[in-house]
């Protein structure tokens, strides 16, 4: 993959950073580099993953404190330049808190921390994150979250639908998300946030490979 390098952001409390790095390096032969959240130099990475976990202990609200890190401040220019950013689980929460994606993620309707495999409908492959679904419109990915209920107002939902920004919807909504939303993109398509964990579905020995394509899409221009 030439020298294409994916930056994997590490916050205090991130816990899926190594899984993401393992999936990218070990399964896809894509180079990765850990980026400590206090770094604001993104010059030597070509795409960024905000991994899952509990940044800053989920204090105040999930993703609320991480939003003020130097790295997230630097992310604005990175996104504007068209480079790709993938936020998984806590990464999705950070992307909504910081305004890169609309809406918010709140406590699951049943208050349970849900750790399960879920079936997902591909609604849009804007940005090319899910272009692998020509023959397969449903994928299966693991979820693991207590606060994954996507919420937005009706105007925002209409915009998401009209502009085809909804990437994934749960087949059997596990957490009470508005409109069964599991993942959305920005209008340009270069930012994707989703609650399911593609990095945990990259090898048959751990239950499936439906996450591979989305991670591989990080190298798309």
């Amino acid at each position: 993959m030439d020298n294409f390098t994916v930056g994997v952001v590490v916050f205090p409390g991130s816990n899926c950073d190594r899984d993401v790095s393992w999936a990218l390096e070990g399964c896809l032969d894509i180079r990765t580099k850990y980026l400590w959240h206090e770094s604001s130099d993104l010059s030597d990475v070509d795409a960024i993953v905000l991994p899952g976990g509990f940044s800053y202990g989920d204090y105040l609200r999930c993703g609320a404190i991480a939003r003020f890190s130097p790295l997230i401040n630097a992310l604005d220019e990175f996104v504007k330049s068209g480079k790709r950013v993938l936020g998984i689980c806590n990464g999705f929460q950070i992307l909504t808190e910081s305004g890169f994606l609309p809406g918010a993620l709140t406590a699951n309707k049943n208050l349970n921390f849900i750790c399960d495999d879920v079936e997902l409908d591909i609604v849009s492959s804007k940005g090319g994150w899910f272009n692998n679904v020509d023959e397969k419109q449903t994928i299966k990915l693991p979820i693991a979250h207590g606060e994954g209920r996507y919420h937005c107002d009706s105007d925002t939902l209409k915009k998401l639908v009209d502009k085809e920004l909804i990437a994934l919807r749960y087949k059997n909504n596990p957490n009470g998300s508005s409109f069964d939303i599991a993942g959305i993109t920005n209008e340009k398509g270069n930012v994707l946030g989703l609650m399911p964990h593609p990095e945990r579905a990259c090898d048959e020995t751990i239950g499936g490979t439906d996450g591979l394509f989305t991670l591989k899409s990080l190298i798309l221009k």
Partner: protein
Amino acid sequence: MDQFAVKVFVRLRPSVLDPAGEATKSASIKLGAEGIKSLRIGKMIEVKIEGNGENEVREKIDLLCDRLFANTVIEDYEYSLEKL
């Protein structure tokens, strides 16, 4: 410089489901409390802050509430302010 004690109340917007409030309401009823029509859980944040007068402090608190203490997509806030 004046010092103020500020109490910020952050609440989920009425349109946002509050599962923790619902669970607590259910437990309240099991405890035997009667007549509870609604129960919703919010946060209270206490801040001691210095500034040149109430207006300056209000500006600071407004910024903190809008950008950090509350996520205005899902939450409303209000605060009371007392000069110390």
